[in-house]
């Protein structure tokens, strides 16, 4: 069963071609790490799968159908969500906003809706956290709540856009392990983007590496190699294995160790 399929897909933002002629097939139940430098198209690819961006070429199929906004089969954790300062709303109230959130009416939750939110919070172990104001939570706690939000409605595909950003290494590992455990238990397919491969090693089934407008999909050992990455980037790339960790280097620069480049403060919706 194919969950996500790209056939010769070209994605453009304004005049910039982000991805060109990308082919890929992701099967049900896979845990895919989506990697690539800032601007390589990780967010753009997810937005296309969500139906927020129409490809300028090729075709995309999600569960065998054309992408459409509001597809209940997809859960989404967008990158970098900022909330108004001084807001004291509880985490529960914020994440519950997604329940039937597109429908007109008052934000009352039905009993079934409340139970669904509680179930999702239980799954990520955040039932207690949700009573506190979201603004008062740490980065890791907040990400857990947003993950719970994505589970609401029991989607079959989860798109997680940089959920590790601004987390320290210990919380990064905790987050990856939690998502992996949930994915095993609930059986959904997950696309998990990150700017560094190491926290994902051992958890992901395959890696989708984006670079130079192209994509390479396969097992970590087959994709994160000097040959494949040099072809993607169009420049000589070295891959160094050290203590079960992988470092991707171009010349003398560690390509993946530039987390500060990934913080878009107030960036418009068009970031890649």
């Amino acid at each position, binding site marked *: 069963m194919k969950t996500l399929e790209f056939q010769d897909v070209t994605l453009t933002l304004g005049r910039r071609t982000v991805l060109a002629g990308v082919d890929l097939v992701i099967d049900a139940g896979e845990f895919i790490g989506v990697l690539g430098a800032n601007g390589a198209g990780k967010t753009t690819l997810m937005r296309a799968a969500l139906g927020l961006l129409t490809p300028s070429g090729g075709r995309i199929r999600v569960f065998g159908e054309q992408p459409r906004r509001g597809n209940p089969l997809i859960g989404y954790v967008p990158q970098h969500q900022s909330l108004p300062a001084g807001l004291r709303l509880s985490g529960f109230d914020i994440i519950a906003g997604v329940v039937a*959130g597109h429908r007109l009416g008052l934000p009352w939750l039905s009993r079934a809706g409340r139970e669904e939110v509680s179930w999702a919070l239980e799954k990520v172990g955040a039932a207690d956290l949700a009573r506190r104001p979201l603004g008062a939570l740490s980065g890791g706690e907040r990400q857990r709540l947003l993950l719970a939000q994505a589970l609401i409605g029991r989607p079959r595909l989860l798109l997680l856009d940089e959920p590790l950003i601004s987390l320290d290494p210990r919380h990064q590992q905790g987050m990856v392990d939690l998502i992996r455990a949930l994915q095993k238990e609930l059986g959904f397919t997950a696309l998990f983007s990150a700017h560094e491969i190491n926290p994902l090693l051992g958890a992901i089934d395959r890696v989708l590496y984006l670079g130079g407008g192209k994509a390479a999909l396969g097992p970590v050992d087959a994709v994160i190699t000097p040959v494949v990455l040099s072809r993607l980037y169009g420049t000589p790339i070295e891959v160094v294995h050290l203590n079960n960790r992988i470092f991707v280097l171009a010349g003398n620069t560690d390509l993946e160790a530039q987390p500060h480049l990934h913080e878009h403060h107030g960036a418009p*919706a068009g970031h890649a």
Partner: protein
Amino acid sequence: MLAYAFMRHAFAASAVVALIAGPVGYFLVLRGQTFAGHALSHVGFTGATGGVLAGISPFFGMVAATLLAGLGMGAFGARLAERDVAIGMVLAFALALGMLFLHFFTAYATAATALLFGNVLAVDTATVWLLLALGLGSIAALAVISRPLLLASLQPELAEAKGVSLRLYAVLFMAIVAIVTAECAEIVGVLLVFTLMVGPAAAASRLTRHVLSGVALAAALALAEAWGGLSLAFYTDWPSSFSITLLSTLVYLAAAALASR
């Protein structure tokens, strides 16, 4: 003090406006668009003076101008609404244009003062009914769109992915804000619209953790401040707009102090 008809009218009008301004203001605070609301009221001043110049009632001129400006702000999207400098320029120019209109119809300073600082004690029965009708329409519209509006306000990227049109709700919401701004201006004047629309809502959003309790508290605070301010004005002979604003400021400061404990 309720023996006087003008006080009864003032209490009725301010109750109507406060109960609507609170909830609408709560969403305005959630969306971080309070400054846009303030700018709308200045456009309302232009509309009111322009209305008088064109021979229609200042209130209708005000409603028309704020509605038009609100729709424009919504249509140009959140990005415009967040641009402080652009809004500030619109605000200044609107006020200057209003002054020009005032200059042309060579009215007395009292007309300008009434528009700028409100004249709730001069509200008549017909105006109360008009405020009620517009207010009920606004609050009903807000109730209908509140769920998607909430998601679009708090998590715009997610809302978009869930099929919520950010622009549609921005436009609808700003239209509601525009009407409520004109209503508030009738009570406290265009310069002090913040008093009823933002003050109580900002205090409520700092004191509550739930949307519905926040909306309810915002409405209750707005009502308490409006009525308290009217009573205070009656017994002290201070201008009513000042009294209401004084209470709004004190409540906000108290809420901020409580929340930061």
